[in-house]
């Protein structure tokens, strides 16, 4: 793809707690659909975005059982991004900050992610077209 670029996103927020996770996923989805390669450095609470033990639930307030609620967990959205990237021939390299994983007990994540360190973020910075840090507050 002639306009293929490599974009790096740095995430900090855990899932469920604010809108930044949604916007970050939207940006990554757009980038994948555009055919770009993506690097993700998941720092701090963001290492929980793809935690494999997330599970769906029913919604009694709305009178829906789990199947009707159809409530994908964040890990499912991330898995869908990996699938879309593969389909489009894009590379999605998702690095989990290792110390952040350890201190949060977040070692169990979906396939496709890898453990890393700030050195990976330095490498991403040097090899990608651009980097966007989405900080927590």
């Amino acid at each position, binding site marked *: 793809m002639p*306009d293929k*670029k490599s*974009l790096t996103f740095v995430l900090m927020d855990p899932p469920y707690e604010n*809108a*930044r996770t949604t*916007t970050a996923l*939207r*940006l990554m989805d*757009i*980038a994948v659909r*555009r055919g*770009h390669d993506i690097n993700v450095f998941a720092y701090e609470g963001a290492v929980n975005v793809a935690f494999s033990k997330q599970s769906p639930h029913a919604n009694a307030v709305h009178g829906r059982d789990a199947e009707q609620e159809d409530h994908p967990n964040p890990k499912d959205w991330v898995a869908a991004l990996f699938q879309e990237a593969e389909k489009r021939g894009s590379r999605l390299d998702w690095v989990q900050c290792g110390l952040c994983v350890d201190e949060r007990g977040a070692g169990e994540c979906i396939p496709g992610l890898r453990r890393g360190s700030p050195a990976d973020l330095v490498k991403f910075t040097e090899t990608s*077209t*651009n*980097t*966007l*840090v*989405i*900080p927590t*507050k």
Partner: protein
Amino acid sequence: MSNYLLIESRDPFESNEVAYFYGLAKDLAQAGHGVTLFLVQNGVLPARPSVQAEAVAAVARAGVEVLADDFALRERGIAADRLAVGVKAASLEVVVDRLAAGHKALWH
């Protein structure tokens, strides 16, 4: 001269720091750089004509392209055809395209 993409996710109703970011956008534009201020999440709230609309309009008058995420506008029931002066609705794709084009990108 450079191109800057300033992404504002917060709103001035909640945070005083938004004024700093609007000010940075204006100052960069007045220094001759290409500047886009892209409002996302609650950052689109001042795009609805309101007491905060003048602050956003002032940024646009300074030569900054002010865009508001069309999904965030719709999510908040803000009509895309009745935005504060100087603000245009836009797809989040603009952010990815400007990143890919190498614009210096800051998220606030």
